[in-house]
């Protein structure tokens, strides 16, 4: 082959190689985004004069509850390595004993000083599974913390930690027991028992004293469970992916189907004592009357709305919810009639939080808004990307 032929061939090979490297780099970016959280939806916790919220980039931010002004410097979780999930926060932070508690999607529990967001204590889920992660909240229970975590594709586990030191007290299920499926939920703790469902279609009740099963066996439902249950008068209320809303006896685990939606139930229900409000991914909000044992109303009554991932809240007889429609909707709790609504900056998937008459909303564009239901006015809003 001539010298020019070699040159042409070499140039083509170099071009092909460059193209291949570029394509691989681009594709690596695509696949990275599969395991990295592209959204995440941490809710907001109000503690005295401050609110705390987690972000999709693994930051915990403190804002003034009245003005939205940033407080101390945010805490930044260490960046994930190539083989780890994103440090994003899906669960709502909790505050207990002057510590902010939050679980990261890369499988680490953080305990931070609430005043300074420093002095981090951490506990990493002891699993070599490549898909381990925490998608729910860390729940304080006396001197313990309870968190549900995913360890690998089929196994999740409930961890009970010492609140002061973040050392492990016990875990459920024990090694070798039947897998729970992935756990992407927040346990609800009542009288020393944690109740939670998993993607393995089962609802579990675990005694926090020794991590033993409180029921004879986990309650099997027909669909996966992400929604944290709501405990009311000895009953748990929750919906599942089989489109069914259930009432489960907290003492025995016996389940009873109450009504069906047209899509999956994802969000934790809310209650005002008279009714349970359950949001569905089909865009409907259902009100179940606890006295009559029947469905009281469904909003909207006709047609479909956008998926509701965000948990509703009840404030002064009004039920408030936000959805993928980018609208905050306020309904009359008794009738389901629309009171008023307000356009938001983006879709909302984080659970809503209420303190007094103010509702705090964390939208997917990382804007946190405070809306006063009494005045129907925006109190403040702030984009978390601007908080340094």
């Amino acid at each position, binding site marked *: *082959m001539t010298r020019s*032929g070699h040159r*042409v*061939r070499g140039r*083509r*090979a170099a071009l*092909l*190689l460059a193209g*291949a490297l570029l*394509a*691989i780099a681009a*594709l*690596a970016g695509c*696949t990275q985004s*599969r*395991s*990295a*959280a*592209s*959204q*995440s*939806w941490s809710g907001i916790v109000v503690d005295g004069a401050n609110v705390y919220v987690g972000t999709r980039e693994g930051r915990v931010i403190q804002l003034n509850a009245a003005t939205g002004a940033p407080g101390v410097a945010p805490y930044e979780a260490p960046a994930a390595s190539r*083989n780890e*999930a994103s440090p994003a926060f*899906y669960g709502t932070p909790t505050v207990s004993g002057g510590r902010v508690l939050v679980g990261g*999607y890369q499988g680490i529990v953080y305990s931070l000083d609430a005043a300074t967001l420093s002095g981090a204590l951490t506990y990493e889920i002891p699993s070599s599974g*490549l*898909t381990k992660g925490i*998608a729910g909240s860390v729940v304080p229970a006396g001197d313990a913390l309870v968190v549900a975590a995913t360890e*690998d*594709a*089929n196994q999740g586990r409930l961890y009970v930690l010492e609140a002061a030191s973040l050392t492990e007290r016990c875990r459920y299920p024990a090694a070798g027991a039947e897998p729970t*499926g*992935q756990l*992407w939920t927040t346990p609800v703790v009542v009288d020393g028992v944690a109740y939670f469902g998993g*993607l393995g*279609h089962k609802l579990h009740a675990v005694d926090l004293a020794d991590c033993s099963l409180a029921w004879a066996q986990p309650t099997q439902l*027909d*669909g*996966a469970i*992400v929604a944290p249950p709501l405990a009311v008068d000895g009953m748990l209320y929750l919906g599942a*992916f*089989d*489109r069914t809303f259930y009432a489960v006896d907290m003492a025995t685990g016996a389940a009873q189907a109450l009504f069906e939606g*047209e*899509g*999956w139930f*994802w969000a934790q229900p809310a209650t005002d004592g008279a009714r349970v409000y359950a949001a569905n*991914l089909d865009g409907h909000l259902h009100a179940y009357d606890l006295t009559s044992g029947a469905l009281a109303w469904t909003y909207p009554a006709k047609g479909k709305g956008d*998926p509701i*991932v965000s948990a509703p809240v009840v404030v002064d007889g009004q039920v408030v919810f936000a959805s993928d429609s980018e609208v905050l909707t306020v309904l009359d709790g008794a009738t389901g009639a629309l009171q008023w609504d307000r356009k938001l900056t983006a879709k909302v*998937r984080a659970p809503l939080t209420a303190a007094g008459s103010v509702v705090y909303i964390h939208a997917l564009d990382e804007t946190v808004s405070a809306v006063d239901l009494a005045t129907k006015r925006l109190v403040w809003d702030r984009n978390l990307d601007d908080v340094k």
Partner: protein
Amino acid sequence: MEFLGLLWNEVVTRPMTNSLLLLYVLLASNLGLAIIAFTVVVRGLTYPLVVRQLRQTRKLQALQPRIKELNERHKNNPQVRGQEMMKLYREMGVNPIGCLGPMVIQMPIFIGLFWAINNVLPFTPENLAGLSGRMYGWLPHLDAIVPVNRGFLGMDLALEPMRSGSILGYALVGLSGLTMYVQQKMTQGPSMDPQQASTQRMMLFMFPVMFGMFSLFFPLGLVIYWVASNLIGIVMQYLVTGRGGLAPVPAAAGASRQAPSPSRPRRPSRMGPTLSGALPPAKEHNGDGATAQEPDQDGEDGGRSGGARPPRTRRRPRRGGGRRPQ
């Protein structure tokens, strides 16, 4: 743009996602088998397109000597060159972009399949929540199978081979490159142009290597699809064009494999003698890498036509079947 996204979702991604889930239900909740079955169904549906594409490609390959000849003859007159080329294409029943059409139609299918597999293997809560909106509410039993079991032969199909570290996963990556090499080797025809032949050789190795490297970064479910798809493609190619470039070169052909010479019989092809039989060889390799120009038989130049021109018959390519002697 929003409308296009909606259209894409409703016409391509959503039906594919639901079909994959349905196959998962039918195949005892085995996602690996469902992906393979899905590949067979999709490749079966696109079979007529693939056959057309292969035939057009083959025809174009067979025309290369004459195209080169036209290029050289009319290198100073692009207009005449263009006209002559179109005339040649018409005469031989070749659509120069005919092989692109089927490829273009297949592209959305491949991309849709990529997203379908990604959809049924949600990695994050937002992916799982998104799956709800992509499932047909009227299909029974689908809600109950979520989340799908991601295990297959000890592998997690949602993980990339790099992350899973599974030996079988790496073997699948190797297999995806190997099957692509075989398929490509079958596709490549003899080239008259040494430079083109050199590029072909390079691509023959380059693409499988690239493909193998891509596979390292994609979920194993997709790698299974690629391997299955390549294997089906090899079978399809064999049915349409025979072994193609995989066929052994007769010893009489001498050192050069780049072009058929008048002194050796042409490799039988499932395409039949459609074009190859009708086309005069344009170059003769003399064994030392140099080529000699065959006397022009087209008669177009008015001074070089010396031999009798073979009849310019247009025969229909034979479908499948065995070989026939030439």
